[in-house]
């Protein structure tokens, strides 16, 4: 599929042929750093001063390049389609090849960065448990009550590395019921209905 670039986008990218190839490579690197870590205005100012152009032009050029890369990676477009989409900008062959190289080198990285963007639900990380037997309380002596205490560690929904933890306590019969329910859920993967759908997704 071909990318359709808006007029404004084309205008931003029209800055690129005015500088030489090494600078375009440098802009590519800045664009990828932007994706990984966020924009840094100092870099734009430095580049603008060296090239004697206004800061907005540099910023638009880099952002336009980054948008081109993310859109291409998002749709997983092939080399031919990428070249055709870029042809519309009227760049030189050398510049087109450079952009293609940039895309090919980094598209899997860009895809993995993009896949981390939407926030996910808390996911299982770790489970600690202990089995206790309650022998007596202040009011009742000579008891024998087994109890299972669990601490479930869940990853936070915004993907940070610290963990939520939840504490649960259950008796053994509830635990067995829990286990059988979860095993039934696993067994649902093997039904013909689920298999049919999985076959068609592949």
């Amino acid at each position, binding site marked *: 599929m071909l990318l359709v670039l808006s007029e404004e986008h084309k205008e931003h990218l029209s800055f690129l042929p005015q500088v030489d190839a090494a600078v375009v490579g440098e802009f590519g690197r800045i664009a990828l750093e932007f994706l990984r870590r966020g924009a840094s205005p100092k870099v734009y100012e430095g580049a603008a001063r060296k090239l004697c152009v206004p800061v907005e032009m540099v910023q638009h050029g880099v952002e336009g390049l980054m948008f081109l890369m993310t859109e291409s990676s998002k749709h997983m477009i092939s080399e031919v389609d990428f070249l055709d989409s870029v042809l519309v900008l009227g760049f030189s062959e050398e510049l087109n090849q450079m952009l293609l190289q940039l895309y090919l080198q980094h598209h899997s990285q860009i895809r993995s960065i993009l896949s981390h963007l939407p926030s996910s639900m808390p996911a299982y990380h770790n489970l*600690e*448990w*202990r089995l206790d037997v309650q022998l*007596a309380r*202040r009011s009742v002596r000579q008891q024998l009550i087994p109890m299972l*205490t*669990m*601490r479930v560690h869940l990853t936070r929904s915004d993907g940070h590395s610290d963990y939520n*933890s*939840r*504490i649960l306590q259950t008796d053994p019969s509830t635990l067995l019921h829990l286990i059988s329910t979860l095993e039934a859920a696993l067994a649902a993967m093997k039904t013909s209905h689920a298999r049919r759908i999985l076959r068609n997704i592949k």
Partner: protein
Amino acid sequence: MRFRFCGDLDCPDWVLAEISTLAKISSVKMKLLCAQVLKDLLGEGIDYEKVGKLTADAKFESGDIKASVAVLSFIFSSAAKHDVDSESLSSELQQLGLPKEHTTGLCKSYEDKHVALREKLRETSLRLGRLDSVSWRVDYTLSSSELREVNQPTIQLKLQRQGAESGAPETTVVSVSADKFRVLLAGKFSIF
């Protein structure tokens, strides 16, 4: 096949696969690698550069290094968890295909650190709301805004514990009247 060091269950497939990776390094380097993994399990941290040097002869890639560290951690912690003696561990590992010299080295390291490992595992077991310290103070109230002569002793107790849910330190301050405190003490001593 049931293995004692896996808790009388089947050995996981990945352990079987990585035991063959372990067989690639020499038995001397294997003993040093075991020492490093044991240091990590006892909480002293692992020196990845040393591990890298030990595995460099066998030309392990980073995936192989991680796998061998993981399989040694599993073997040691699982054997300590189920309190397996080193002869059984040795015979079971040889059944799984680990060469004899490697097994003897591994079991020797295991035997040396067996007690320390079990202690460490006991410490890191799940505990909710561990009590860190108790401090107390006895005050004698002379008078208050409500009553001119009060003349009552009060106990202030400060309990410092680790929060059950969060694991962060929490402080609770309680003040107890003398009678209530006597009830508390009387209830406490009748457990034993």
